[in-house]
């Protein structure tokens, strides 16, 4: 019995790792968005220049005069590069999202049966099983299908039923 919570922990840790990856990738994506819009506004500005407007580029602490056409093509290249990067990161995001979803359903499948066993146990040795069910279920606070499984399995006896109710309400409270 003790093995299941441990395996559960490993699985949730893997899931959390994926979530962290996801967050980092989203941050990179946002940075690109920001760079893209900045470059776009620069390009827009460069396009409306007249002959008396000199373009400078900041190099270190000094401003160096630049050929406007050259500046334009540099910014255009930059924009192309940024667009490619965005496509690449979008692909990564999709992949990580799919992996995370897979992991999630895997965790759900593998561990829901464990909770069923725990609850039917609680019909027999109620004192300990109570705490045990609560301890394991509390981690599962987002999963409602499991809560109903618990109720169904435990519905055979009055004690079991009230336990399941207790678990359910704890679930709701822990979700707050």
């Amino acid at each position, binding site marked *: 019995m003790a093995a299941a919570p441990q395996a559960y922990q490993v699985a949730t840790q893997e899931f959390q790792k994926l979530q962290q990856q996801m967050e980092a990738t989203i941050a990179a994506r946002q940075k690109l968005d920001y760079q893209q819009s900045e470059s776009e506004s*620069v390009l827009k*500005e460069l396009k409306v*220049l007249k002959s008396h407007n*000199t*373009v400078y*580029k900041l190099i270190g602490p000094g401003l160096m005069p*630049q050929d406007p056409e050259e500046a334009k093509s540099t910014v255009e290249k930059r924009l192309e590069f940024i667009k490619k990067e965005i496509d690449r990161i979008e692909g990564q995001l999709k992949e990580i999202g799919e992996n995370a979803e897979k992991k999630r359903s895997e965790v759900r499948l593998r561990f829901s049966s464990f909770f069923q066993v725990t609850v039917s146990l609680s019909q027999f040795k109620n004192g300990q099983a109570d705490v045990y069910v609560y301890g394991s279920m509390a981690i599962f*606070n987002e999963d409602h299908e499991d809560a109903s499984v618990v109720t169904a399995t435990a519905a055979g006896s009055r004690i079991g039923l009230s336990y399941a109710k207790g678990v359910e309400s704890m679930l709701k409270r822990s979700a707050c």
Partner: protein
Amino acid sequence: MAEKQISLGDLNSAQLQEVKRQLEEEIEHLSTSFGSLRSAQAKYRSCANDVQEMKPSTKGKSMLVPLTSSLYVPGRITDPEHVVVDIGTGYYVKKTRQEAISLYTSKVKFVQENLDKLQATIERKQDNLQSCVGILQMKMQEERQQGGVSA
């Protein structure tokens, strides 16, 4: 909005909690963006004002030019007709005063449009959050009553 309400009613209380948490996060994020847009707008506005301060009559007037934050050298305005404007990503453009002012005012306007859009989004999200919280409270009360009857 009506559709949203119906789908909210179909959720159970823990799912509603999740929706509520997400909405709260979104609102916080949007409010931070709103603040930074505001300060960007203020910056553009003060730039436009500063350029307006430069008049042909300021020609030849002396000023202190900061070389670093603690070192200043005396200088004189030789060309009050032109300013050099930062247009982003390290590029600067020499513009006439009038051009610079119109650039800054158009930036202020651009930011204002975004601020308005953002404001509308925030208000919509707050509405959503409110209806979500309302339904959540209703559901929790129902569950409490049901729990009381069977126990």
